[in-house]
């Protein structure tokens, strides 16, 4: 049994392996060296694990590549896996998210991209179709780019229903209950400090959303200021930021197995994107955001970088394993839900995304 950790960075992809239930890790050689890898997924639904990477070929544009042999070789679709239809007049700028659907929907992979768009593949990520329902939404022309660009950066398909939840900066949370045909904003209760009050129906800068293990109706959102929980599939959100040292940040991660357990990595503020006190700390709730505990064993002090929205993930092990990749090129792993962390990698380019799977 092997645990695989994929680390996408500004200049390539690294794979790390653990063969001792995540106690120690071996970091491999770089893949796709010098290419920006902003999105990664490990699809374990097929006979062999498929590593999907959303890359930016520097001068040569973005695309999706995949490997069915853990990086020994990489393939891409000649004409490009993601291509905006001619009538849109748009061109792919960056792949922000690659998300395999549930086990019963083998071959279905979702992609969130810049410009704001959602894509669906039925062939394991070799080719994608634009989800027209979201692209044609009347709100789309008014979604504004966040600091990193205007993108659908979070895609959460519910494996047990036709619900698909997306989050974007800016735009906020949108949900489809019919597999992507019709979409409605669900941001009630989420603040938008960069807009006049009251907070609008949509337009929030939601940095990340995670679904709780209790079920698809309970979600957490790390916002551009504010951490929120919804218990009704996003129809309403309430603040759960009390007890955190700061309510700004990018990632939020929920345990796939333990209801009520989630983690965030607070940063001071949008104008000061460093952790409070220059100490990298993960904060964990065990009660769906009612209380938070600071976790720092094995994490550095005198840390003046940040963690990107996809630079933090959980695995599906028990207890839940956590992986924190930083903009100063380090990756820390925890096999005990954050109680302790160990260094897996350092001196990498800035980490944009981490994903883990048992293969």
């Amino acid at each position, binding site marked *: 049994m092997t645990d695989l950790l994929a680390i996408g960075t500004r200049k390539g992809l690294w794979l790390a392996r653990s063969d001792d239930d995540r106690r120690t890790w071996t970091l491999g050689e770089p893949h796709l060296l010098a290419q920006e890898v902003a999105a990664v997924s490990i699809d374990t639904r097929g006979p062999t694990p498929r590593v999907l990477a959303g890359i930016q*070929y*520097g*001068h*040569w*544009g973005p*695309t999706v590549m995949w490997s069915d042999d853990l990086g020994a070789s990489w393939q*891409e679709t*000649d*004409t*490009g896996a993601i*291509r*905006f239809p*001619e009538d849109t*007049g*748009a*061109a*792919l700028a960056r792949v922000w998210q690659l998300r395999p659907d549930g086990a019963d929907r083998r071959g279905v992979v979702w992609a969130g991209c810049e410009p704001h768009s959602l894509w669906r593949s039925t062939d394991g990520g070799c080719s994608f179709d634009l989800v027209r329902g979201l692209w044609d939404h009347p709100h789309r022309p008014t979604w504004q780019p966040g600091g990193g660009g205007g993108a659908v950066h979070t895609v959460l398909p519910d494996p047990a229903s036709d619900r698909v939840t997306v989050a974007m900066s800016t735009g906020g949370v949108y949900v489809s209950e019919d597999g992507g045909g019709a979409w409605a904003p669900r941001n009630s209760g989420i603040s938008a400090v960069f807009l006049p009050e009251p907070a609008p129906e949509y337009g929030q800068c939601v940095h990340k959303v995670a679904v709780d293990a209790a079920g698809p109706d309970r979600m957490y959102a790390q916002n551009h200021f504010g951490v929120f929980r919804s218990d009704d599939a996003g129809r309403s959100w309430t603040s759960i930021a009390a007890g955190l040292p700061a309510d700004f940040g990018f990632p939020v991660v929920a345990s796939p197995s333990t209801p009520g357990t989630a983690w965030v990595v607070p940063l001071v503020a949008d104008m000061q994107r460093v952790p409070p006190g220059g100490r990298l700390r993960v904060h964990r709730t065990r009660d769906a955001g009612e209380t938070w505990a600071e976790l720092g064993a094995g994490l550095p002090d005198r840390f003046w970088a940040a963690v990107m929205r996809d630079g933090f993930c959980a695995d599906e092990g028990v207890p839940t394993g956590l992986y924190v990749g930083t903009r100063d090129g380090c990756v820390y792993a925890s096999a005990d839900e954050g109680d302790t962390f160990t260094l897996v990698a350092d001196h990498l380019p800035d980490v944009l995304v981490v994903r883990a799977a048992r293969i």
Partner: protein
Amino acid sequence: MAVQVVLPGVLADLAGGAKHLEVEPGGGTLADLLDTLAAVHPALGRRIRDESGAVRRFINVYVDGDDVRFAGGLDTPVPDGAVVQVLPSVAGG
């Protein structure tokens, strides 16, 4: 007479390893030439242009030594015998 397309090494791999390609221009403009090139080498084609047809931001194309951005862009005439060079611009880090 064909047009000679000169590629940087990193793109030559997508054209069977050839840095110099002889391409029938297919029409009279750079767009026609790039369409022809992409039909034969689709992965090469989308490294040079995005799906809207625009030459990528950090790609420079020269027709007989002239940067097409300061000429006619994709409508730049490409006469028989021309040399079309594709180069990455100074960018990155």
